């Protein structure tokens, strides 16, 4: 049992992920291997450091950062961390917090919009369909003009089923969403 005075944020993260950020010795291997680091405003190792500090300023910086929304969840960092830590999971937890507190960086609304559109599709139909997802995403993100090349090509390759599949148990899926929104209580 580590008795070090971990920050409140560190405790929250530990509770959510089982990963104790206090153990990070700032070697930077996560940063070194991260495919997205070059786009990030906070490197993965710096995310770990800010989480160690965990005061209001650090928490604010983390939750408002672009970096947490740039993480792909590719687990390169987790795979290679010499301290057997899990930065990818830490970032998951931070994203969830960031969204809950409405702190998501304005620059990252596209990513957020995409995730939300994705989940909306699943909530309504039980599955993800490229067409509803794309339209929903475009409406909510304002990202109207990208991908103009792809859709027609996909259509010709038979890769864009236009009518989404709706599953029988979609009510059950809706209930799951509702329960999870309430913090995991049905």
């Amino acid at each position: 049992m580590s008795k070090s005075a971990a920050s409140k944020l560190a405790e929250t993260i530990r509770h959510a992920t089982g990963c104790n950020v206090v153990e990070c010795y700032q070697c930077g291997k996560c940063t070194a291997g991260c495919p997205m680091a070059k786009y990030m405003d906070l490197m993965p190792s710096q995310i770990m450091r800010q989480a160690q500090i965990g005061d209001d300023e650090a928490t604010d910086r983390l939750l408002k950062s672009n970096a947490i929304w740039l993480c792909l969840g590719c687990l390169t960092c987790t795979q290679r961390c010499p301290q057997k830590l899990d930065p990818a999971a830490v970032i998951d937890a931070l994203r969830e917090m960031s969204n809950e507190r409405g702190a998501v960086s304005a620059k990252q609304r596209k990513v957020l919009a995409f995730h939300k559109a994705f989940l909306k599709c699943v909530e309504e139909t039980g599955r993800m369909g490229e067409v509803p997802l794309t339209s929903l995403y475009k409406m909510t993100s304002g990202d109207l003009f990208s991908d103009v090349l792809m859709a027609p090509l996909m259509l010709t390759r038979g890769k864009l089923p236009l009518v989404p599949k709706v599953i029988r148990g979609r009510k059950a899926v809706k209930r799951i969403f509702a329960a999870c929104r309430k913090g995991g209580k049905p």
Partner: protein
Amino acid sequence: MKTIGYFPGCSLHGSGRELDMSVKALARIAGVELKEVEDWNCCGASAAHNLNHNLAVALPYRDLALAEAQGLTEILAPCAACFARLKGTHVRVTRSPELAAQMREITGLEYRGTLRFVNVIEFIGRLIEGPLKGKLAPRLAGLKVAAYYGCLMSRGEDVIEDEDHENPDGMTAALEAAGAKVVDWNFATECCGGGFSMSNTDAVLDLSHELLADAEQAGAQAIVTGCPMCHSNLDMRQLTINQRGLGSHDMPVLYLSEVVGLAAGLEPKDMGLDRHFIDAMRVLDIASAAQTAQAAAAETAKK
């Protein structure tokens, strides 16, 4: 392995259609029945765990419970993301009774933890050891391929268990059985940008470009993958990459199941080979050209 549960996942009905087609075609000739998990729902892919950790477990949990209730014992999930989410959920709920209890409450369903999970690499590995043994012709002899695992088929110690996480070789046996030569390259486990295809296209183009470039440098004539997300990033985005002036790639990207299907004598069209953005049908031509050249070289050497 006469029958096996089948979890196609959303992308196999859309952008990953060729994977679905080729896996089914292979199963057909191997005499394996694929029993689709009834009324499955989306596993949540990379979206759920970004926004709600409970949802990220609860969605796959419903699928596990349904599959178990249906009497299945093994699930083939060809999509790497689905596989990771399903197996990851299984690992987590079997390890933590509290989490299992919570999921029971959320979904109203019971999962006892009896399922086993098979990804497309293991599935094909078993086919070529079993029903397809001796039935594969080295039709791709002379073709140099880069085996691409991506992050989802190489990482997660609990999810990908019997694999060297840094230098995986799970595809090698199948590719060699098909006659292909597997090149030594660097980016076998590098991430292609995954789920950012729409929301952060620039990054995906960049990462995919680097990957393609390394495969070219290593002399690969095609990339072989098992993951529909990687496939769509590498195959469908290649044109955009070229348009943006990042490179001028023309690299066929095939599914492992397609390569093995070719070796097993399946019709390319039955596996969706004609549906790729970058012409994939040509791998057979490349191979046969290489074979002819080699035969000629051997002839001259004899003289």
